[in-house]
């Protein structure tokens, strides 16, 4: 399962020119589902620095706490790869179960919760013991996973069952099944308001779940100009640090919705590439990165003006993006 860096020589050369191949260099990492690689771009010029070969079909990406590692869920590789940022190599492949799609880490960074899409399971992997410690049965096609910062709860969507499951970390039990819209996909959490936002791809909405009551309290819909409601297929969602703005990718409607979180009003729609899914923000929250799965590129949006400043070709079916600035 261990992968080596294919274009090491190229990377080494470029990395020198780009003030070092290390964490915090401002590089951008994009997983490509069909090229079985994580693509590395320069964070300012967006020039392609190289690619890190991974297990098959990499999708969700996450940093570890100190940003020395990137975890990449590789669905068809049946593993979560561990990429060492300094060396730009996959140093380990974690055997988390079959077909991991999305995942999250416990607040202490020890447990990795991953949706195992084919088997309808939430896998719990202990990164210290290096083994799966539990597999919890959930509805078919689990996708979005979010570990609550309280360390007690994990949320997981079932795309098939149209449910959000609340899993108690201690007991491994599903404590609540919250009825969502159709094909619930991904999450963002606002602990200040006790709100868990979940995108519903087929019903074209975002459900806002009250995390105390474990029930949906509001629903958002989107009407970008020139598209019918059935074209609106929300998937990606990201909130800024202040939790005043949420970004929602609208899939086949080729737009990102910018939502004012307090009023729940859509402030703007930004036209991006085809089938926009993945989202990433830089630390300063000045640039929003959007992966477009059907145009194989990434749109970069200036968050102040809400204009696309650049579209960059990336690779086949770009999925997730991380900015290591």
């Amino acid at each position, binding site marked *: 399962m261990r992968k080596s860096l294919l274009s090491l020589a190229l990377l080494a050369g470029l990395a020198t020119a780009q003030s070092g191949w290390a964490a915090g260099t401002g590089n951008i990492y994009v997983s490509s589902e069909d090229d079985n690689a994580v693509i590395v771009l320069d964070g300012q010029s967006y020039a392609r620095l190289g690619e890190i070969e991974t297990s098959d079909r990499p999708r969700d990406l996450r940093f570890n706490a100190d940003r020395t590692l990137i975890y990449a869920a590789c669905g068809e590789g049946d593993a979560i790869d561990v990429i060492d940022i300094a060396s730009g190599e996959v140093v380990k492949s974690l055997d988390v179960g079959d077909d991991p799609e999305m995942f999250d880490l416990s607040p202490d960074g020890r447990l990795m919760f991953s949706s195992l*899409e*084919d*088997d309808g399971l939430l896998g719990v992997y202990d990164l210290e013991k290096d083994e*799966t*410690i*539990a*597999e*919890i*049965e*959930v*509805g*078919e*096609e689990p996708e979005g996973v979010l570990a609550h910062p309280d360390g007690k709860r994990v949320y997981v969507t*079932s*795309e*098939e*069952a*149209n*449910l959000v*499951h609340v899993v108690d970390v201690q*007991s*491994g*039990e599903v404590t609540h*099944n*919250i*009825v969502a*819209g*159709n*094909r619930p996909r991904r999450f963002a959490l606002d602990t200040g308001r006790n709100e868990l936002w979940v995108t519903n791809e*087929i*019903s*074209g909405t975002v459900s806002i779940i009250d995390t105390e009551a474990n029930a949906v309290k509001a629903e958002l819909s989107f009407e970008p100009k020139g598209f*019918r409601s*059935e074209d609106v297929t929300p998937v990606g969602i990201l909130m800024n640090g202040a939790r005043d703005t949420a970004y929602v990718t609208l899939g*086949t409607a080729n737009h990102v919705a910018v939502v004012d979180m307090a009023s729940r009003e859509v402030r703007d729609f930004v036209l991006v590439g085809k089938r926009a899914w993945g989202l990433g923000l830089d630390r300063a929250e000045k640039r929003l990165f959007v992966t477009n799965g059907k145009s194989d590129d990434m749109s970069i949006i200036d968050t102040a003006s809400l204009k696309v400043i650049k579209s960059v070709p990336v690779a086949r079916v770009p999925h997730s993006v991380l900015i290591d600035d």
Partner: protein
Amino acid sequence: MTERLQQLSRGGPALLALALLTLCLLALAGAARAAEPAQITLGYLSWEEDPRYTEARFLARLPGQPWGRPVDGVKVALRDGRFTGKAVGVEYELIDEQVEQLDEVPAALARLADKGANFVLLDLPAEGVRSALQASADRELLLFNVSALDDSLRGEHCAANLLHTAPSQRMLMDALGQYLVSKKWRELLVLDGTQAIDQPLIASFDAAVKRYGLDVEERREFVLGSDPRQRGRNNVALLTKGDYQVAVVLDALGEFAREVPYQTLEPRPVVGSAGLVPDWWHWSWDRNGAPQLNKRFLKRAKRHMSGYDWSGWVVGKAIVEASLRVKSSDFAALRDHILSAELVLDGFKGGRMNFRPWNGQLRQPIFLTAGNWVAARAPIEGFLHATNDLDTLGANADDHQCKR
């Protein structure tokens, strides 16, 4: 549960212990719940001697034809719905009724209704569907046609309590028509079957020709066999001489059609019942969650999922979806939700689906399949409709024969 334990036991004793703990917790949670889950009962009515479902035909794996009984599809959907059921406190039950003769359909339907099956899947040819309709008049039933493609069931023989999850033949032919227009392959040679079963297919194709302005350059009838006196009608090379862009073969059972590709006199693509075939599901579709559904189906039914299986599956999906939204097992409430424009059905082909109010047909995309791949999904980009692009396929609100 046994299967689940075996699965877990591969992970070692620690996992097994955890699994047992989880089971105990689940049992406790179950005991704590006051009410027993309410039952939603589905019936499945089929005909043992149905000529569409012979072992030889299953083994032939003809495109656009059934590869097994659609009951396998509904079983997968109900299993998939188990978490939904738990969430809203209902359980789904499936009762199978198979008749030996079509004239036993009314009695079998009555037996199902008496057992509380208000939702009945009809896996019958058009004649059987009509006989079930007559028998259902005085009963509270919602019938789902899962396998009869006849346009007449969506037209003059339609009924208020009859829904169709299989597409009409017309929808399939419209999808093909859109594809031909999008490729600018308008000049056609059409090979028509001569059996009674081929005639509705030919009529549907003719409607698509009219709708999409295709040009039929030549039209010939084919027969099965190798009688040299009939060679003008049974020899593919002789049948396919001419000046055209595409050969269309219209063969409802597909037995002749499969001999046509690569045997044409002119080097021309073959579409219709062989070559590029319109179908409403395909095992190679790799978007919209289809790979997971295909894997689940393959695991349960030990074969690839066909359009017919999808028709069965989507009935289960619709009933599970309705129970999630109305949070009840009440038949009238479930039926009303299924019939309403509020229904949002995720058919794993992209987009939302619901039933056309004018004839009970499920709106759905159609795939143009080419062996081991989906070449295109209709509605094809550019084919637009005033309200819903899915309505560019099949009979429209202002163009149908259904009075119900």
